[in-house]
């Protein structure tokens, strides 16, 4: 059975919330920026990626009073409260976001801070991992080296007495911001 885009999005949001990620429908770039500023809790690191450029995100965030660091993020990443990246697409069955992360700054922003905000075009949701294979293959053949991250919920561990604990080495919070009008190319974030 082929699902409608709405049904896929709905499934994606449910699956993401099951694994502890938050999904937020944003009606405008402004709404997304407001949300980020409200929840960032401190310095934001913002690596370079297409959606950030398209929205002029750094500007917008700063206008709202946020402290934003761009460029060489390495030092800032270790103490920043939040990181923002785009996502190439999402997977409905597990609530996963797929992020092309070859540039180190993307990896730092999505790994070191306590909070990770992901911008995702809600029309780019695939049903499952198998459906992602052709795109993964294209991403792989486009360039090497490359580094593609499939992220499902925040960082977690159950290594002590099997008690689930959120925030092991990676972000404690994963916020997925669903925003129309972002690139509809699956190879692009």
């Amino acid at each position: 059975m082929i699902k409608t885009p709405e049904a896929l999005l709905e499934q994606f949001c449910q699956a993401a919330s099951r694994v502890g990620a938050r999904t937020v429908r944003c009606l405008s770039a402004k709404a997304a920026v407001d949300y980020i500023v409200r929840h960032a809790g401190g310095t934001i690191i913002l690596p370079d990626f297409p959606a950030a450029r398209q929205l002029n995100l750094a500007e917008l965030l700063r206008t709202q009073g946020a402290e934003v660091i761009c460029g060489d993020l390495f030092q800032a990443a270790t103490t920043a409260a939040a990181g923002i990246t785009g996502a190439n697409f999402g997977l409905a069955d597990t609530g996963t976001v797929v992020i092309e992360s070859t540039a180190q700054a993307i990896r730092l922003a999505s790994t070191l801070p306590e909070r990770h905000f992901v911008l995702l075009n809600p029309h780019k949701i695939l049903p499952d991992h198998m459906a992602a294979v052709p795109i993964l293959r294209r991403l792989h053949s486009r360039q090497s080296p490359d580094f593609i991250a499939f992220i499902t919920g925040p960082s977690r561990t159950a290594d002590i007495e099997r008690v689930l604990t959120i925030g092991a080495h990676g972000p404690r919070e994963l916020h997925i911001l669903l925003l129309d009008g972002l690139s509809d190319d699956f190879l692009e974030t």
Partner: protein
Amino acid sequence: MSRRARQYRHLIDQALSDVRRQDALHRFGDAYLAARAEAFADLDFESLRHDIAVMKDTVRDDWPHQLEKFMQQAAATGAKVFLAPDAQAANTYITDLAQRHDARLAVKSKSMAGEEIALNHALEGIGIRVVETDLGEWIVQLAGQRPSHMVMPAIHMFRDQVAELFGKLTGEHEAEDIAHLVELARQTLRKEFLHADLGISGANLAVVEDGSLALVTNEGNARLVATIPPVHVVLVGIDKLVPCLEDAVKVLQVLPRNATAQAASSYVTWLRGPSPGRDQQPRELHIVLLDNGRSKLASSKESRDAWRCLRCGACANVCPVYQTIGGHVFGHVYVGAIGIVLTAFLHGLDDAAELIQACIGCRACVNVCPAHIDLEHIILGLRRRLAETEGVGLIKDLLFKRVLRNRRLFHGLLRTASRMQKPLTGSTSSVRHLPLFFSSLTEWRTLPAIAPRPLRDLLAEQPLVAEPRLRVALFGGCAAEFVLPDIGLALARVFRHFNIELVYPEDQSCCGIPALYSGDAATATELARQSVLALTKTQADAVVTVCPTCTTALTKHFPELLAEDPALADCAAGLAAITRDAAVLLAEQLADASPVGPANTAGTVTYHDSCHLRRGSDVYLQPRRLLATAGWQLTEMAHPDRCCGFGGSYSVLGQPTIARAIAKDKLADILATSAEVVAADCPGCLIMLRGLLEKSNAPTRVAHSVQLLADTLPDK
């Protein structure tokens, strides 16, 4: 007993006294099964694992070619690729690399291959500090131990022990609070990541198609290992190769579900070539492909299926022996059932000897393995090889070669034993002390007496069926023949009622499994020959057994053992096709018979699934239906399909202390149902259960389901 065996016994005793840990592992096993069932709710596990097995076999059978292609592809991405034939070569490559980069600190994300080659030891040997960054692995490292589970390395420890350990590190008192302990690890390890010169990880998959690697974690440590240090070494076994991305995704669909009951792990990282560092500075990626016995494994006829292993750890999770003694005793580097097989391969049969004997043969692991590995079968093969080199032990050797192969002598001996034990049995049918070889093991359950008259004598006195609609030969098996002949009599009664003739060929002997599973294949073959001849002569329409172990012998082992015997190979295959467990045969024959007794009037019963019947033959509905047909009211116990601890000769001659601990769990589950009767379809289980219940003075009756059916038949 050898010194090594004595030491092992000592370790077992120590593990058995750790009640808190046993309890935790049991609860883990239960919680795991429930969560796993939910994780697979919408998927067809059987077909998924079939696909994975086929895919892994394709790579295995073509590994040199697949490996070469992967190495080319990976090299084209800019990675440095090295094939390490053994542990030493891998360690030397990595230590040389570390020295070239003048490395002082290495951060490591969990790698079982790293454990296998003792990489930390090698690096520390040249003065490099190695820090494990997976929380469980770090805990184990700080404690100076090795992982007791492949996925959850510190599952044997508790929060107070972790707090104490961390306290030693910080010099402060650390609260026994898990969130606090995780935070402490995060902060401490964060610093190590930032200063590390070398990152080392394993990989879950190596994709031949494009030279990519997939790393799966929940904590995110592998991402940091792959991101921050200027040099990243991936150590990966050549068994992790998969042909293409579709295959990789299939594995990723099953792996987290089977390992931790998650639909997806938090992070799956696809790595192709050395991703750039700060300011687009180039980093280095080294892929060390580890053979270390794997190519030998691929060509081992009996063990090669172990190549398929995904290292999900499930075979330990569900293993009653693992739950009882834990991974430090039941494992070497790799733990659980696969640990037995890999230890034998990587470290030699000698080092694996005790582990090989510790398997109880319950097949729980076979049921959950996502790569469809028949672990029990492989372990039996290893046991056979062990017997060839070490012998099966003096007592068993005598028993098997001299006694078991000679039916007259064997049966004569048992008849004598039956007479000799008379003064000991007193009024009950169980002895407190058993004659001959079963001695000194009776403190925790009674052992059965040998019946005054064997089944063959009793059956000879049974009335004949005038015009039978079916002729069925009974393969009795030792337990039903000499210890519990009432089961056979009950079957005769049921058959008479339904107009089926029961034939009992005189020359049949022991099914040979005690010898086979102890490693004495020659005796097993001789016994198979004797019984196949005897059964074939009857020209019966079907063969029935009241013991699922015997069924396994007839349907599986006899054809295998006699495959090369020109005279008997066909006979054995023919018999295998018409052999049924009593419950299955009755279910087939009585499919449209009306209920024997009115529903729920016979009494309350709880049913124990014997391992060989439930997992060996996938039979569990038929006996339950049979009981209902006979008017019994069924109350299910918790874990009806968990092993009772009998495991053939295991509980008597193998590892009686482990068997005892496993049996204790079963007893509790039975008593909790308050059923009047506990039924099972296996004489071995019945002996075990009866012994347990008698010793604990419980009034619960123990019976074969055929007996319960016979009980409700109208008198004739």
